């Protein structure tokens, strides 16, 4: 029971972090039909930026904001400078482009910040809360991670459902020609979408780093598991991506805890194949859609 509780809390906490990566991938996929394989590496990079700020006597919370801001600029910049010029070309070109960016970032980060494993601070204690003599298997930081993820998801929901600019972004992503006729500056909306997605990624990077430490390829697996969650849920459904990612977090945690941590990725693979065989477009796919 005790093990089960710990694995569940761990699974949900990491699931929410994967969910932010998954959500970032889905936002970009919906806007530009691109899977951004560099999403994790971009998050790693902005986490190094935050650590750099902290090492230069900036407070944690300001560094937190700096990371998210850097994420926005970074994401928007990648869309403008790299993605825009090859928009509409073969989808594989975009795959190679983002893989190239991934490799480049993982090489540049140690050049700028040093290649050693670094500790990244947690703003709240990671020591489990005790209620009297009973140990609760959840720490204040776990609660913070889940709360931050939920808050951001809520904000995004409100943004896309209730604000003009959010509605314009959705229109630009779904019916770019019509949106253009309506006077929406589609290009600018796509840039904004990439920027916001990178903010989500940056948040994931900052929240995962205290638990797995910070080094140039520390986000590789978060990207794979976030991507797994996203296609498990369905790439066109933000709700599906979040649900899928939390399921991935839980399954990996149980597999790791009960069967051995070397089987985690195998467990993820088996689960993904099983789901995709039944629902090839993911659990939350509403309609069949042709993709390149």
């Amino acid at each position, binding site marked *: 029971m*005790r*093990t089960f509780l*710990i*694995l569940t809390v*761990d699974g949900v906490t*990491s699931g929410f972090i994967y969910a932010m990566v998954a959500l970032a991938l889905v936002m970009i996929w919906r806007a530009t039909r691109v899977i951004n394989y560099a999403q994790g590496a971009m998050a790693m990079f902005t986490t190094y930026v935050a*650590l750099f700020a*902290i090492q230069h006597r900036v407070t944690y919370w300001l560094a937190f904001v700096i990371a998210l801001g850097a994420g926005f600029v970074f994401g928007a910049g990648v869309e403008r400078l790299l993605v825009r010029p090859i928009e509409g070309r073969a989808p594989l070109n975009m795959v190679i482009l983002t893989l190239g960016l991934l490799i480049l970032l993982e*090489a540049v980060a*140690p050049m700028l910040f040093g*290649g*050693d*494993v*670094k*500790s*990244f*601070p*947690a*703003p*709240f*204690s*990671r*020591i*489990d809360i*005790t209620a009297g003599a009973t*140990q609760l*298997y959840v*720490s*204040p*930081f776990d609660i913070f991670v889940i709360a931050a993820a939920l808050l951001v998801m809520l904000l995004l929901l409100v943004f896309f459902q209730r604000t003009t600019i959010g509605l314009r972004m959705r229109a630009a992503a779904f019916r770019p020609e019509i949106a253009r006729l309506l006077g929406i500056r589609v290009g600018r909306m796509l840039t904004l979408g990439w920027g916001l997605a990178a903010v989500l990624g940056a948040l994931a990077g900052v929240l995962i780093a*205290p*638990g*797995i*430490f910070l*080094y140039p*390829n*520390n*986000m*590789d*697996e*978060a990207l794979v*598991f976030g991507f797994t969650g996203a296609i498990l849920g369905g790439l066109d459904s933000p709700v599906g991506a979040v649900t899928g990612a939390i399921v991935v977090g839980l399954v*990996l*945690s149980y597999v*790791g*805890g009960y069967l*051995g*941590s*070397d089987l*985690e*990725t195998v467990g993820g693979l088996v689960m993904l194949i099983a789901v995709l065989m039944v629902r090839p477009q993911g659990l939350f796919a509403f309609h069949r859609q042709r993709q390149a």
Partner: protein
Amino acid sequence: MAAMTRSRTGAVGSLLAGLAVLAACGGSGGGGANQASAPGITPTSVTIGSTQPLTGPAAAGYSEIAPASNAYFKYVNAHGGVFGRSIIFDYVDDGYNPTNTAAQTRKLILQDKVYAMFEALGTPTHLSVVNYINSEKVPDLFVASGCNCWNNVSQYPETFGWQPDYTIEGKILGQYIKQNYSGMKVGYFAQGPNDEFGTDGINGLNDVLQNSSVTVVSPPQYYAPTAAGAMAVKSELAAMQAAGVQVIASFSIPLFTADALASAAALNYHPIFVVSNVGSDPPTLTGILTGGALGVTLPAALIGGVVSDAYLPLLSDSSNPWVSLFKLIKAQYAPSLPWDGNVEYGFATAYTFVQALKAAGQNPSRDDIVHAIETTHFNDGPGLVPFAFTSSNHLGYSGVEIVKIGPDGAAVSAGPVQVTDDTAGGAITSPSSQPAAPPSSGIPPD
């Protein structure tokens, strides 16, 4: 510190003059002129090669080792070299990927024509080339890995280990646990389950601890050395907590030692940690844990009390002449390197190599250096324990000393130096020789 550096530099200056005289004597002595006696050896230089994880998952920490060795070689070269030859250390990146190791090793042997391989790092990486290197009859000196696979004279006559293998470590750490934590429950935390680092270590521990005064809680908790593995560490520690484990014997790399310490603290769980040398370097652990990964500040307290072992002088022991020698050379030839266990390792292996190269003679063939290592004991080097090298044993250091990390985060000696072999039931004894002080020149005598 500054004053000390200045006086040492002075000593180095006068040494240079002394060596010049020595080199002149060597030239006029019976040895005759330097010749190109083997591939990689010219009258003025000897080139050796190495594959190292300069990038990739193992680069953190390990990428310091070869630059540290190179700093020592630069020092030796600046003071006359070995028989007047400069040592050229050609180390290349393999990213800890055996595919790259295979290609880069061939580059070193076939294209760069190195005299010997030196300090090639990693078990799976070096296993991919150990057959090839031996089939080319290239000396394969002091592999940087504690796998006992390097000690296989019939199959790999050219290959030599250097550090004590993980089984030896496990046996001596197990002996300490048996003697000091009698009656307690001992659990294992190790890399694995199919990784020689974890399994060899556990074999050594079991050899001493099974059917002894302590209870070994099975099964061992294995971690996978990945980010997903890092996430699972907390539940593994919780399982040990639930099983009432009081002493955790850990064969883990530094990142996972840090993770285990942090996870135990997060669980309000306070077992005694006994950690293998590989995973217990205090500066590395402090570096990983400082910076508030736990959300609260207790790095030194966290690593304070950890029991480990050492076969080289303790990093923080500034009274040790080897430590001050290496730190002095580092300050001059590699100032950007930190002073940690990896750097000390690089210096100490380089020292052993210079000892071996000198013992091989003025114009050595490749066989000469292999023969020299098998017949010379090099026990006047920095090691706390003697080497086990003979013509039938290519193991390297044959034992360790028990150390304990204090509340200030520095390791101090906590037990006798002991030696053993990696056979089941092989006796654990006291070493036959005592550690020596370095020569005043800082370079092995001829």
